[in-house]
């Protein structure tokens, strides 16, 4: 047997500090809230203490953003704004290794993903949107589309830096100023991004980064002087925000949960479909709102596909997020791990057939072995609820119509995957799919030029591409 020797990335590269502070009006400041301790989910060790915001800090941040909007950023020519945004993009690239290691420490995702996906894609979002800043008149929203003002943003823990980039880059390119709150369990890379923003000499107040739990997020989104709210997170919280903002005239975009179907037709390229299924549900430990968590496979190839899938999933290496050979890292928090366990138990109780990879798991830290449920029916909780973990539910279908009906039979509608060698079937199925993103013969591909967003309880508004600019413009 060939055992790969441990190949850990050095944690020193993360430049970890014992304390992190919030970023308001161009300064790093202590907040009035109780400091929070952020934990390395791979080892359960405390990484650092982070100061959090009180109500007064939120007011201060919004005021700073308003001032920056009215005096500087809102009236700055696009070509000038672009220079700052390009500079941020380049600084992210320069500090890519530091950001990648820090992200893996704080979030638990494998270093190969933070290194090859999160950080490069975050830089790509700034580069892409920097290019739009002086071309907004050509974006299709009239000759001189105006910014909205102060934007309040709340982002989740699954892609901490990347989600910050998704939110901040288009807001800046369109001339808005930002108050953003990263997730309670993963505030570190956003606060390093604050350093980068300071390094890039962005005028004070244009971007303000707060830290804290849900109460801080609630204070940001419900602040009366915020003109637009952008939220990525759970459907439950999204509904609360929508209720709060109803009737206020403030703009809102929501990117919420999902229970995406990955449909494999019998003429699919099976080996690559297996890769796509694995990528769809085990990428980032399944902590992906657009994860392909429901596999719909045509009955005539179901046994063959499932056998191949088990073999492939058995090769996934679960463990130390900093090891360069780790495929599946740590679950972000004990709370999330408990939630996954609870849903998996419901799968057992409701009669689905559970298969779990025999891979060894570390003794410490929050880990969950890749799991595949077969004989799942649409009525089971594991087919309806978002698990947000490395757990796949396999259902079968007999005809293309049945596949589409089952795929759409969910209150969500964020993404979908279609696997077939037949081009006409791809087009037919994609058209029928009630999902914001449809991937054909691939999965979980992200690009700043492609709009991303959902249907129904997966939210509304798009991020990325020309369409994504609309969310931050007065059109």
């Amino acid at each position, binding site marked *: *047997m*060939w*055992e*790969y*020797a*441990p*190949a850990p990335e050095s944690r020193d590269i993360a430049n970890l500090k014992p304390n992190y502070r919030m970023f308001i009006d161009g300064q790093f400041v202590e907040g009035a809230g109780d400091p929070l301790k952020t934990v390395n989910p791979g080892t359960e060790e405390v990484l650092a203490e982070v100061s959090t915001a009180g109500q007064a800090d939120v007011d201060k941040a919004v005021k700073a953003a308003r001032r920056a909007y009215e005096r500087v950023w809102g009236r700055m020519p696009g070509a000038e704004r672009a220079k700052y945004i390009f500079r941020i993009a380049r600084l992210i690239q320069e500090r890519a290794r530091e950001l990648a290691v820090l992200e893996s420490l704080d979030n638990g995702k494998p270093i*190969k993903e933070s290194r*090859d996906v999160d950080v490069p894609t975050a830089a790509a979002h700034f580069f892409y949107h920097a290019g739009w800043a002086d071309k907004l008149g050509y974006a299709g929203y009239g000759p001189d589309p105006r910014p909205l003002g102060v934007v309040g943003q709340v982002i989740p823990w699954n892609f901490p830096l990347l989600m910050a980039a998704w939110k901040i880059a288009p807001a800046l390119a369109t001339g808005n100023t930002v108050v953003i709150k990263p997730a309670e369990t993963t505030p570190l890379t956003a606060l390093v991004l604050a350093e980068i923003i300071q390094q890039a000499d962005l005028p004070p107040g244009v971007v303000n980064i707060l830290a804290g739990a849900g109460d801080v997020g609630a204070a940001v989104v419900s602040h009366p002087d915020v003109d637009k709210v952008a939220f990525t997170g759970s459907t439950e919280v999204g509904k609360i925000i929508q209720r709060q903002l109803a009737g206020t005239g403030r703009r809102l975009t929501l990117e919420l949960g999902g229970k995406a179907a990955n449909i494999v037709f019998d*003429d*699919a*390229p*099976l*080996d*690559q479909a297996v*890769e*796509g299924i694995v990528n769809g549900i085990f990428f980032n430990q399944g902590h992906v709102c657009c994860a392909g968590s429901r596999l719909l496979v045509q009955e005539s190839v179901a046994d063959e596909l499932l*056998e191949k899938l088990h073999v492939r999933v058995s*090769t996934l290496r679960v463990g130390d997020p900093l090891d*360069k*050979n780790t495929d599946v890292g740590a679950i972000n928090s004990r709370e999330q791990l408990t939630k996954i366990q609870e849903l998996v138990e419901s799968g057992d109780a409701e009669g689905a057939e559970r298969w779990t990879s025999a891979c060894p798991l570390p003794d410490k830290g929050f880990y969950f072995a890749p799991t595949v449920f077969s004989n799942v029916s649409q009525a089971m909780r594991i087919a309806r609820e978002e698990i947000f973990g490395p757990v796949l539910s396999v259902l079968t279908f007999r005809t293309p119509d049945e596949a589409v009906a089952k795929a759409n039979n969910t209150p969500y509608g964020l993404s979908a995957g279609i696997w077939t*060698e037949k081009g006409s079937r791809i087009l037919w199925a994609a058209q029928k799919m009630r999902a914001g993103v449809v991937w054909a*013969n*691939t999965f979980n591909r992200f690009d700043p030029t492609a709009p991303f967003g959902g249907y129904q309880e997966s939210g509304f508004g798009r991020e990325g591409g020309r369409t994504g600019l609309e969310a931050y413009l007065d059109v």
Partner: protein
Amino acid sequence: MAAPSTSPSLPPALADAVRDDASLRRFLHGLPGVDQVGVEQRAAGLGTRSIKKASKQWAIDTAISMVDLTTLEGADTHGKVRSLAAKARRPDPDHPDVPRVAAVCVYPDMVETAVEELRGTGIDIASVATAFPSGRSSLKVKLEDTAYAVDAGATEIDMVIDRGAFLSGRYGQVFDEIVQVKHACGDAHLKVILETGELATYDNVRRASWLGLLAGGDFIKTSTGKVSPAATLPVTHVMLQAVRDWHTQTGELRGVKPAGGIRTTKDAIKYLVAVHEVAGPEWLTPTLFRFGASTLLNDLLMQRRTQLAGHYSGPDYVTVD
């Protein structure tokens, strides 16, 4: 169509596939397609595995033991083959613990010399045959070419398929040729060279792989080394998947040999990672995986010294043969 000389007990689905020309075509065209983007993404992804320390040392020694040390030049002489054989026996004279290579690979007229030099070493003598590298000759000539090499003492035959026949859809003809060459091989192992650089698509690579396996090839091999591109990682992925699927269906283990263009230890390790994770750990043996290479061996030896000494030496410290 001729019956395959091996695999008398193919499972019914596969036995049916080789019943006649039409069945063979139906079978090959019924194989699941290969998605180009997907297979290349997977190959690139696996290529980022970081192999360090003990696992790297193991990989280097394993790779050395899998090398088919090759010279296939018009300018080959008996002297050249003798020095290659010496290298095969003792790759690094300063380090007698270096494993010997798997085989020496030469043209048929050089087999006799290689046999003399390698007698009693356990190193196999591979010979290319069947109008290598183009395969453009009559079946009669190809079979005689094979018999010539086998009679001279070759223990392994690397044949080329008729790519022209394959690309024009005459699968039965390609199949028959492989079956007959296999027959002419007697006890010698047969490696079937697909020349994937001329097959152009991954779908073709998969079909040709199955064709070679159905016809009784002990190994499927990517390339002659005379056509560019020669071996690539994604092509090798497709072939490894084919031998794995073959094993699932028949229980038999067949081998894969990428050849041409693999020159560095880093590349070799990427291939071993693919063998390990695509086919499976049981393929990590010279009986089931080989590298067709000439310059790779010296890089492996240099890296081996680096691992042991903790510093780089240089090309002058390994022998040029």
